[in-house]
């Protein structure tokens, strides 16, 4: 597969919500390349479309226009079941709003996601929860956890599967600095040791510093690139 080292290649993305006078044009011809093994931080003001971008890259929603290639494979034209397979095989996603399954315990949330991916055996659920400092809430349901605990369980759910591409939407948004640091260390370690590619949205300059590259979003486009 010839991917020129890009695990993600998005070009000319457009996405808008609503219609008529209430129409919001969120992505306006956005281009983005993410190289394999990169840890990319995306920053930008609230409401500029960062989550929308991540949803499009993670195949959670379709762009109105433009193309997305993952591992060199054009995915925008794929049928739903193929997109589903890519989500299962290649992508780990941490939602800004966690999206844990409310009727399952923290532990079972992680186990279920591993089962869905066919990885239930041989993955250390406890280890991931301990690394995130949330082993003590493993038996609780999300409603009985603090926001920060939910966020860490949600991150653990995506990390446990060790996907080659991890998309995380403000994964430290509800965390104190110590816990944020612990999560970042885990991300950096997976990025370095296993070559996992990470795209992380954050509002925090200090969090962004953990990344190997930071991009800024404005007016529905990626502005600039720092090394």
């Amino acid at each position, binding site marked *: 597969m010839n991917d020129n080292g890009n695990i993600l290649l998005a070009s000319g993305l457009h996405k808008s919500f609503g219609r008529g006078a209430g129409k919001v044009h969120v992505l306006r011809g956005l281009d983005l390349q993410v190289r394999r093994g990169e840890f990319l931080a995306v920053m930008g003001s609230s409401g500029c479309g960062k989550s929308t971008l991540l*949803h499009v890259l*993670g*195949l*959670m*929603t*379709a762009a109105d226009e433009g193309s997305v290639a993952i591992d060199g494979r054009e995915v925008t034209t794929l049928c*739903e*079941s193929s997109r*589903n*397979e*890519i*989500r*299962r*095989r290649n*992508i780990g*996603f941490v*939602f800004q709003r966690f*999206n*844990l*399954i*409310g*009727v*399952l315990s923290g*532990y*079972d949330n992680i*186990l*279920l*996601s591993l089962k*869905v*991916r066919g990885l239930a055996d041989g993955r250390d659920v406890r280890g991931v929860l301990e690394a995130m400092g949330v082993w003590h809430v493993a038996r609780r*349901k999300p409603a009985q956890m603090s926001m920060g605990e939910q966020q860490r369980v949600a991150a653990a759910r995506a990390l446990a599967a060790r996907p080659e591409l991890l998309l995380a939407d403000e994964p430290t948004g509800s965390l104190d600095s110590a816990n944020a640091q612990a999560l970042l260390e885990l991300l950096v370690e997976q990025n370095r040791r296993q070559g996992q590619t990470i795209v992380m949205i954050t509002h925090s300059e200090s969090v962004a510093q953990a990344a190997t590259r930071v991009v800024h979003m404005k007016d529905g486009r990626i502005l600039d690139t720092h090394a």
Partner: protein
Amino acid sequence: MVPLPLANLWHHKLRSSLTALGVAIGICMLVTLSGLSRGSVDEIADRWEAVDADLLVFPANASDNIAALSGGGLGEKDAQLVRQLAVAGHPAVEYVAPVYIHRGKIGSGANNIFGCAPQDLPRLTGGRRFLEGRVFDPDNNCECYLQHRIGQAGQGVLEISDEELAGNGGLEMVIDRRLARDARLKTGDKVHVLGRDFTVVGVMQEGGLARAFIPRATAQWLGELDRYTMFFVKLKDGVASQAALEALRPRRNLTGITIDQYRGMLMDMLGVMYIYTDTANAITLAVACLFILVSLYTMVIQRQREIAILKSMGARRRFILGGVLSESLIIAALGAAAGIGLSFPAAMGIEAFRPVLTVRITWGWIGVAAVSALAVGGLAAIYPAWKAMKIDVVEALTLE
């Protein structure tokens, strides 16, 4: 781990049980009402099985509605004729039980009131037990007394008071248990019917040909003297019914049929009723299905967010559908089982409340109910699940 469908059902215990209850009510309604409509009609036909006779003889000019035959279309001469019926030169008849039938209201509805001889009562009820009391006028006093008085009067006007009738056992009545319950009667109670005050002297096990019996002499006195509505004929051993009917054929004023033929005719007539009951059952089925559909649909619609989360992890279609389907089917099955279970006490309740009604719960309708619950349960689950799977993850997450 707890499987997701079970986790969901357990987490929303109240809602799950209410949904199952919704299914149960629909199923119970279907099983009970179908049993009621069929049972009450079938029971009428089945009572003819009790009769210990081979042939039924009634007037040739009887109306088509032989189920509601009453009055005195037959005479004493006809009775003699039938008693002496011979096949191949040998007497063919074991006994003839002549009856005079009135229609009268006892309890909640109109009943056939059979006037028969006391010794014929076991023949018409298939020997059913007395639960309390005894047969009416056991020594046939009333008949003797009436014959005596009629003889005395000659051509003159004959007046017989109720006291005279009652004094000779003429106003005694035997009823079956169902009618006793329906009309709240027990031995010793008075019943006003046919313009007279009868006294209940016995209550029998149900299942006999009629629910109310009085002395034949009284029935004739209140109707037409020396007349009969129909004859129940028991043939001697070894005499074929068809041969006896053949022998009866020259008597053009009489129609003879076998009891089985009569039951067949009755069933044909009641067949018209089945059109109504089947239609009613079909409507009940539709209502029950709608009930189940709504109950389960609202349950599964709340899974759309969860389906979106599963989709975000790339869960296979089979996995998602399987989960939602098993959740729905578990509830449908539990509800159906509860509904079928509930229909038995419901049937008992109906029969206790309206004792002349019969609820016959059949395996056929239990099957229909169970299959519809599962089929509708499956449909109700698949549609919202399929809808949630079709749209974007992000869009599905904002549903609810």
